[in-house]
């Protein structure tokens, strides 16, 4: 995430910047990513103002979008699409597509629910809410996701069937299997421990652990920047000026600790706090018990997935291969890369990620329904593309895709907040998607000239 992707011109080394452009050059950040952060800021501020204007007070200061509770919900709502978008980047980068992930999400999510509601407690007669139930369910779901991914990946990579067709078939087949499994019944209630994966104030880290996590992440950024710099210097690569490194560390830490602060400033809703006080025999102080919520569990899952996927794509051979294949498949093949194996693995990866999303989604809903994950593939592809993944292959970043998921979800949640009906929401999201890509293509074309 923090790795420098290009080289810094000699002239800017160790000199104070003279202009904004000079500053950006010295920081050596991905300008596309910066552009997206800017776009996100515009969307957020826009919704904040609009929600204030349409709210009960009709002014621009009383908005509800930039409140801890909404940002807390937004973070949770972005998780499922964000997780899958990280895998979709690799799929699209290697010039494939996966239309089946919504159905894989549905099938794995539904199967995990069957494991914990029917198979373990009833078929095996072991009863509900066993301590091991959630992990067995999750393991079965992930294994199923990996197996489906491997099967589809095999057809694409070794069978040479276009991925569009294979996954279009998958979209229908896996969804059909969801119906077949239990004749379309809703499965609920899920295992109590498993439900924690879905997040809620009671399934969050709390303030102390959130701060510790934030400080650790901050230390991680500082360490990575210093280590990268040392390594690059060792091999004689150009490095950022010292002050630029310092600015990056400060910005990174500020962002992380700011996020933790917002999540912590969302206090448990009064209803939950009262219940908690009652259950633990605490007398509520006047004004109610104040419990900081902290980062929700699913958000931690998304952060972990993002880190792991970023590591795989930028620091492991596998990731380099994927980008090489996307850049030029023939050259990659001639260069000795096992293209077929690599492509198949990208599908295994996205199958696993879809299963994780399935767990988060069903745990969040506290039930498995047959419509679980319907049309998720569209949101995921849109997130990856808004996040800078190019359909012509070879270009894309994991953090960009996650940011893309947040952009998509911000639009949807914001419009819900403004009480925009679902058909209009779809129109807006569609228009935004196409205009974002058109604008991006235009800018890229100009800068290439």
């Amino acid at each position, binding site marked *: 995430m923090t790795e420098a992707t290009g080289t810094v011109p000699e002239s800017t080394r160790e000199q104070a910047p003279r202009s904004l452009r000079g500053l950006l050059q010295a920081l050596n950040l991905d300008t596309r990513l910066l552009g997206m952060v800017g776009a996100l800021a515009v969307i957020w501020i826009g919704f904040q103002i609009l929600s204030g204007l349409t709210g009960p007070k009709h002014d621009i200061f009383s908005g509800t979008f930039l409140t801890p509770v*909404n940002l807390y919900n937004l973070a949770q709502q972005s998780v499922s699409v964000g997780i899958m978008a990280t895998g979709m980047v690799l799929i699209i980068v290697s010039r494939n597509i996966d239309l089946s992930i919504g159905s894989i999400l549905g099938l794995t999510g539904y199967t995990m629910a069957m494991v914990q509601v029917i198979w373990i407690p009833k078929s095996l007669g072991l009863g509900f809410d066993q301590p091991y139930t959630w992990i067995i369910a999750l393991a079965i779901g992930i294994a199923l996701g990996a197996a489906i991914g491997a099967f589809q990946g095999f057809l694409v990579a070794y069978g040479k069937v276009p991925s569009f067709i294979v996954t*279009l078939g998958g979209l229908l087949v896996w969804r059909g299997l969801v119906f077949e499994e239990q004749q379309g019944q809703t499965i609920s209630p899920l295992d109590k421990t498993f439900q924690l994966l879905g997040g809620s104030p009671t399934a969050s880290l709390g303030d102390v652990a959130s701060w510790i996590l934030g400080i650790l992440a901050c230390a991680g950024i500082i360490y990575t920047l210093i280590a990268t710099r040392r390594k690059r210097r060792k091999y004689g690569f150009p490095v950022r000026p010292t002050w630029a490194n310092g600015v990056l560390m400060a910005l990174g830490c500020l962002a992380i600790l700011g996020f933790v602060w917002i999540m912590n400033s969302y206090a448990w809703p*009064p209803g939950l706090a009262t219940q908690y006080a009652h259950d633990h025999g605490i007398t509520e102080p006047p004004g109610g018990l104040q419990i900081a919520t902290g980062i929700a569990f699913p958000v931690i899952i998304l952060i972990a997935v993002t880190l792991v996927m970023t590591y795989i794509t930028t620091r492991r051979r596998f990731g380099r291969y994927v980008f090489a294949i996307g850049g030029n498949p023939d050259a990659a093949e001639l260069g000795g890369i096992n293209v077929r194996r690599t492509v198949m693995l990208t599908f295994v990866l996205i199958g696993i990620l879809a299963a994780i999303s399935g767990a988060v989604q069903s745990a969040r809903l506290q039930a498995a329904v047959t419509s679980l994950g319907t049309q998720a593939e569209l949101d995921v592809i849109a997130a990856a593309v808004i996040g800078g993944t190019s359909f012509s292959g070879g270009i894309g970043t994991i953090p960009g895709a996650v940011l893309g998921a947040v952009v998509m979800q911000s639009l949807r949640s914001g419009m819900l907040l403004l009480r925009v009906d679902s058909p209009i929401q779809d129109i807006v999201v569609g228009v935004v998607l196409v205009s974002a890509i058109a604008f991006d293509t235009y800018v890229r074309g100009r800068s290439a000239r």
Partner: protein
Amino acid sequence: MVNRRLASLAGVAAILFAACSGSSTPAPSAAASAAAPSAAASAAASAAASAAASAAAAGCVVGVSWNNYQEERWAKWDEPAIKAALTAGGATYISNDAKSSAETQANNVDNLISQGAKVIIILAQDGTAIKPSVTKALAAGVPVIAYDRLIEDPKALYLTFDNKLVGKLQAQAVLAAKASGNFAIIKGNKADANADFLRSGMVEAGVPDVGKTDPAGKIVIVGETYTDNWDPANAQKEMEQILTANNNKIDAVISENDGMAGGVIAALKAVGLAGTVPVSGQDGDLPALNRIALGTQTVDVWKDARLLGKAAGDAAVQLCANPDITKVAGTAPFTSPGNNTLTSQLLTPQAITKDNLNVVLDAKWIDKATLCQGVTAGSVAACN
């Protein structure tokens, strides 16, 4: 190069989709040509049929065209009820399954006629696409019963539960728990006429439309939204945003079905309001009935499929004797969304609350273990 390949694949997919969806739209010319002779033919046929009305019911073969027999409900509840009613009336049951294809269903209806069906019951896959087949059956002197789903043909008997009443019962039960305050309404799919039927029933019960006040002025609709595909996950997000927009000050939620109620209650649970805010639903989903026992859902409007099956069987037996659909017991005129005056029989749904959960138990719709899972002993009468 790759772009072009992708584009061509997309093209192929588009053609495939078009081919699939094309089958659900009837060719207008076929419909028109079939409609013209139908009036004369059916008049002749009904004369012939009434002449044979005195014939024994033994010759009464009733054909049922299922749209998708794979769904649990039809095999488990509807079919046995229809069969039982037919057997009681001395009629014979034949059936086929369209496997969710409107095209297959059109062939299936023809098939039933050639197998000698005297009455046809259709669970329509597509209420518009099936119209030419209905016209054809009527022309052959075979009366048609539109089962559960609307077919916009005035000559077909429309048999369903009263959906407007469902909405009314939902609103009434919620109002009984909370007569005033901030209300949120989670509606179903915008393209589904039922979503609006239900909403108009709520207005009858005293829950005003958005921006309007009820006579007593005590109810404010602070959030109302359609939900794509009746999807519970969407309903959950909608509820979260309504809670955020109103600083959690929500007093009651009217959800149009049980699946969405599940999403709503998950959102309420996250802010500690589940169990204090009344929530409605319909369909008799097993998890929803469990939620009623647990106290997180207030009402589940239950449409017992067996009553519908029995009504259809009884109506079919009567139609064998006399193909005039207006003479079937319990029918009344009904104005459809397409402004046709249909002959219909609307069954009354039943509101299930904590107090009458024994109804679903006695009907063996749900077993006690499923209904009472996680319920504190002694809190619900039906679970004791």
